[in-house]
């Protein structure tokens, strides 16, 4: 909980990780990728305030204690949601798996929700393992990487019939929050890997599921917003937006927040600190203090209200994940959440 000027903010960090990218965990022969990946993440940290930058060795692997301190002791986070990133091709025990996240969550009961993942190319065996993970860790969400290479396959699409089977299974198991990574990726090489049209397709077909597009589709915010206005169950994950822009590029942060409020609205934006790329403390405090600057180029965008910030920082995610919010931190929530957008003429 964060309290400022008499207002109490319930904070859900909907995008966190517990990873091991230390050299001992690099797959022999894949060291360049393993090293390049974590160094790339580390460079993103450089977009945050200088006093929050970590040395690379701490960034490669951090302790339980440090994570608990950064999120819950000083970071104002009430609940954090793990989003796995397996990357077993580069890291021997995986980079940030459901299992390591789940073990961390079990060591600290009541603090974390554990999301898992699936890959429709793993067929029936993958389906069984997926169901076991969901039951073992009580998962209410998944994080999907549609652009991941596997053997001869250069990524997959949510439109694939195999993916539909998994999404049906999600509905059956109550895994209702589908986080889709559409941010920077590598393969397939000849396509634009950020295409969100498959999310559009499944959001229509699976009305009982919520689709949270991570990093708001950055660097294709325009395609994402355009799609999101047409689907009532599509949400924007703000990881990278707050961490990567609020400090380093405040004017673009204002423009992006303005656009997201304009096209999606206050009920569809989900805060995530993206730890350990960025610590939540400065993001939560900075976002509560932030507002739309007076600037001609921003004249289409009204300032954010306290109630809107409360929704973005935690209440929206609490709604999607059925997280109990203390009564004094709630606001009047809408019965049905519809996208905003702009009507013709």
């Amino acid at each position, binding site marked *: 909980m964060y309290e400022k000027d008499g207002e109490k903010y319930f904070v859900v960090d909907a995008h966190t990780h517990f990873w091991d990218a230390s050299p001992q965990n690099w797959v022999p022969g894949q060291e360049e990728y393993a090293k390049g990946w974590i160094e790339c993440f580390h460079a993103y940290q450089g977009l945050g305030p200088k006093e929050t930058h970590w040395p690379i060795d701490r960034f490669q692997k951090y302790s339980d204690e440090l994570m608990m301190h950064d999120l819950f002791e000083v970071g104002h986070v009430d609940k954090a949601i793990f989003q796995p990133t397996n990357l077993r091709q580069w890291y021997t025990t995986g980079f940030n798996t459901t299992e390591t996240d789940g073990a961390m969550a079990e060591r600290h009961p009541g603090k974390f929700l554990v999301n898992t993942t699936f890959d429709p190319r793993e067929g029936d065996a993958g389906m069984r393992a997926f169901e076991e993970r969901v039951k073992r860790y009580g998962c209410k969400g998944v994080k999907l990487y549609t652009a991941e290479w596997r053997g001869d396959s250069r990524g997959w699409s949510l439109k694939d019939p195999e993916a539909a089977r998994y999404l049906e299974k999600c509905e059956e198991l109550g895994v209702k929050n589908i986080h889709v990574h559409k941010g920077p990726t590598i393969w397939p090489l000849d396509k634009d890997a950020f295409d969100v049209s498959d999310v559009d397709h499944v959001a229509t077909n699976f009305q009982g599921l919520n689709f949270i597009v991570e990093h708001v589709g950055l660097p294709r*915010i325009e395609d994402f917003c355009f799609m999101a206005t047409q689907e009532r169950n599509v949400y924007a994950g703000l990881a990278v937006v707050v961490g990567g822009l609020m400090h380093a590029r405040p004017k673009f942060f204002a423009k992006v927040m303005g656009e997201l409020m304009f096209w999606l609205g206050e009920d569809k934006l989900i805060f995530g600190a993206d730890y350990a790329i960025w610590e939540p403390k400065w993001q939560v405090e900075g976002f509560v203090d932030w507002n739309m600057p007076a600037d001609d180029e921003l004249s289409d965008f009204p300032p954010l209200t306290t109630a809107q910030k409360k929704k973005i920082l935690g209440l929206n995610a609490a709604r999607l994940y059925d997280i109990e919010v203390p009564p004094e931190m709630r606001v009047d929530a809408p019965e049905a959440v519809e996208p905003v957008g702009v009507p013709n003429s």
Partner: protein
Amino acid sequence: MTAIHDRNVRADHASVWSALATVRDPELDEPLTDLGFVARCEVAAGRAQVELRLPTYFCAPNFAFLMVADAYDAVAAVPGIEETEVVLQDHFAAEAINRGVAARSGFVASFEGEAADELDSLRADFLRKAVLAGTDRVCRAVLAAGFDADDLPGLTLGEVPSTVDIERLRARRRELGLPAADGDPLLIDPGSGAGVAAGNAKRHLAFARLTRTSMEANSGVCRGMLRVRYPGIEKEEGTG
């Protein structure tokens, strides 16, 4: 590629740099020289050596390939340049890209088995985004000059005061084969080239603004990452 050069012309650093300034990051629609992507440019005795750098080790290889190949073409076309070397540094696919560009072998051949298509349609998609973003820039200036928002759908390119932004917008439209003459409408669908009806103008302009925001935010992240990766770059010219 064989270029016929006038051997009496001596190429210098400035002419090669100017050529590099015509090469854009297709995703950001900004010149490589402004973005700080040119790490080294040396010219001596008709030989140009250029090194490019990008914000991350994992920047998209398709766009990286286009930039290295475009830079090669631009530099090789400078009068007096007889030998051209353009290489990308510090990138996971640098070897394949550099080999492919040096051999003039195209994207698919450079990434055998990993890519099925050349990059023309990708480039066109991003030019269409550049047209939308440019439309927002131009329309904001037009409104600031005293025009009414309701006038925009009826305006032609020739009726808009000439600025750097309008010339840039026309150039992008010409590249796509879209109408770009004085009598053509200011607001067009960047896919079909058809004029935008008055009833759809509000939505069109909101989307143009959004597209510009997206490209500029993306550019902001890229510039920020480049500075983290190559400290000291702020001091270099034009990397604002």
